[in-house]
């Protein structure tokens, strides 16, 4: 056992940090302090900078434009991006679709779709959930029927993140109605500009737009856009959902948020002193910080565990459960730090998607304070999406404890 990080890895972190410092445009960095989803333009600019360096998708295999970094270095890279408040990249394309394409895609599909992802030219969204199949994917009903060399897609997807930005969607569709529910599902890539696709925004309680419904009405999709084998979609989806065992911890995000809370509390007056010196608040922040440390060291254990290591799986199973809880806690604490202003709506003043574009917001001058309450509301979703906490606990009980 050895819990020390190697000097070469420390040097790597310094290299990443130096690159980001030198290349992240200051205006993007400033907007990154705000607690909104980054606008597509910011993400795109930043992706092109990263792509020029070969760092768009370090976790992909090197031959597809990724790197051969160790899991720890991939983590350090992401960690430094969060530290710098760089825009969050197109996670659907990079983290979800990318590994599937690299592993199961045909050479033609890889050549067609991977490069535009790396350069931020084409954006993706994920079409898995449907109305009535929240955490129960096997029950999905969107169908794709073969008609010559095209599939005809009919149905509806919901909770589709960033569909309003997306150029493409990768969807689970039912291509065979005659077999057992999981066996009839295929993995299909669909151009969002296809006739018959309608997007409907789902405004969320933070008054922001990230989620959508997507309707398919006799949408024609070339059969060559099907990944791998028809009927194997369920397996690819499981691969995709389990491929990255540590990102669901969102630990670097929460580390950034803890720093944010500390900053806000150090600048918030409380009576004749500062909030950071209020013992009750300081203790809550310290507790959060300690839990984040425990979470990050859990990530370290998983990063260094062999893929099928039982102990590693036990630890991996807690990352989403606790990571999502801490993510919301951090946001709630940031709102609490703002005091009266932590109760105010803060629609993104520079965003493109505002439910109530009335510009009514308290007069905040600290970039770190802008958007805090929108984030606090949005984060209510963290313990719901991607397998709700109740599902996670049942999974742990059954798969780890054998109950």
């Amino acid at each position, binding site marked *: 056992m050895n819990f020390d990080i190697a000097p070469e890895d420390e040097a790597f972190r310094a290299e990443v940090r130096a690159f980001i410092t030198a290349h992240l445009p200051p205006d993007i960095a400033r907007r990154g302090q705000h607690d909104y989803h980054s606008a597509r333009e910011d993400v795109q600019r930043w992706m092109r900078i990263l792509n020029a360096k070969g760092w768009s998708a370090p976790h992909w295999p090197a031959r597809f434009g990724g790197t051969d970094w160790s899991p720890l270095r991939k983590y350090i890279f992401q960690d430094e991006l969060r530290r710098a408040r760089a825009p969050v990249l197109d996670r659907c394309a990079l983290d979800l679709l990318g590994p599937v394409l690299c592993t199961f895609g045909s050479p033609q599909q890889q050549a067609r779709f991977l490069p535009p992802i790396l350069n931020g030219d084409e954006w993706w969204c994920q079409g898995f959930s449907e109305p*009535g199949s929240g955490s129960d994917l096997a029950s999905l009903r969107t169908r794709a029927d073969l008609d010559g060399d095209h599939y005809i897609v009919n149905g509806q997807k*919901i*909770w589709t993140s960033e569909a309003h930005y997306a150029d493409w969607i990768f969807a689970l569709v039912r291509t065979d109605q005659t077999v057992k529910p999981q066996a009839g599902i295929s993995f299909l890539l669909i151009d969002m500009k296809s006739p018959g696709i309608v997007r409907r925004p789902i405004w969320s309680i933070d*008054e922001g737009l990230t989620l959508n419904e997507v309707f398919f009405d006799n949408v024609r999709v070339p059969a060559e856009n099907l990944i791998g084998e028809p009927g194997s979609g369920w397996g690819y989806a499981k691969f995709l959902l389990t491929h990255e065992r540590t990102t669901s911890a969102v630990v670097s995000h929460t580390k950034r948020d803890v720093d944010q809370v500390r900053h806000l509390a150090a600048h918030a007056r409380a*009576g004749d002193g500062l*909030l950071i010196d209020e013992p009750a608040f300081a203790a809550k922040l310290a507790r959060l910080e300690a839990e984040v440390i425990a979470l990050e060291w859990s990530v370290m254990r998983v990063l260094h565990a062999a893929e099928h290591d039982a102990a590693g799986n036990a630890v991996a199973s807690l990352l989403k459960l606790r990571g999502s809880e801490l993510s919301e806690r951090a946001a709630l604490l940031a709102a609490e730090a703002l005091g*009266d*202003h932590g109760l*105010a709506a803060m629609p993104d003043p520079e965003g493109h998607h505002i439910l109530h574009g009335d510009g009514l917001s308290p007069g905040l001058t600290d970039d770190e304070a802008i958007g805090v309450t929108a984030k606090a509301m949005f984060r209510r*979703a963290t313990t719901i999406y991607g397998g709700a906490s109740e599902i996670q606990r049942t999974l742990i009980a059954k798969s780890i404890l054998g109950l």
Partner: protein
Amino acid sequence: MDFNLSGEQQALADSVARFTARDYSFEARRRLIEAGTGLDPQHWQTFAELGWLGAGLAEDAGGYGGGPVENMIIMEGFGRTLVLEPFLPVALFAAQTLAALPASALRDELLTGIVAGDALIVPAHGELAARGAPDHVETTFANGRITGTKSLVIGGHAATQLIVSARSTEGIGLYLVDPAADGVSARRYRLLDNQHAADLQFDEAPVLETLAHPGEGLAAISTGLAHTLTGLCSEAVGAMDTAIRMTRDYITTRRQFGTTLSTFQALQHRMADMLVEMELSRSILYQGIAALDQPGASRDRGLAAMKAIVSSAALFVGRSAVQLHGGIGMTEELAIGHTYRRLFVIAGQFGGESLHLKTLAGLPRSFWQETTSPAAC
């Protein structure tokens, strides 16, 4: 002790329920939000006509002789449908602050205006650095003028007059200020629950009248705040009750994994905890109302205990209700998210759990120490 509504009180509750059923459907409320004011003059007129603006006000203060229970009934009903109008700051905070002042022609005129629905008077008392502590006032009064900044003045954007607390060397006084006067500027914003509020900046703003002389203002505004806290907690109880009812309805109908969600024990237990939190909140709300009559420290203790419990319960129930709804609970289209947002605001308004626990810790006593009343128990 009697925990049942009297006939008149039941009639009031029914009246509130009729109003909210008619005027505060989810759709009607959405339209009011989109109108962008958080205040429908017709609603306000209704409040006046039905006597609600004076329902909790003693007769010698120009009201209809009710008290905090009447305000509780109204606010609980408002909490059920998330009424947006600034009833709380006007009919409770401002009116009870004024009622706590010695009778005078000015006071009575202002109260009459409130009760009639003509005057939308709100206190401008809280400040950012106070974080809910009632006695932290940095705004100053000197030479007939006010300087300082007040935060989170709900209804401050629509007020006809302001009751401003300000400090001079002799202590805190209360002053009537015209919001349209020179030297007053408002930064208006919405709260997360779509109530409208303002931060008010006073820059040598002229005072219309002195309501309480320096050193005499804190007691009155604290009394107003005490009534406001019980009103706010009443609203929380109404909102929690609604959240629980909506969640129960959702999980008993929503099917997943081949059964209704309500068959999952983990969800049943979470709902049980939500119910418990709501009932404990109601219990300690009653205690808070009883404490309103107690002498200073006892009252403040009772109110601090109440707000600490209700703040944490409101957050727990609100967060849990969204959790049990799943993704749909996160959408603007469903009422439950709005209820959560209201509960979130209530939890923090006038100080959250931490502040009130600190207050409570600073006022220790034995359960059996002072009087034998459960109010002090």
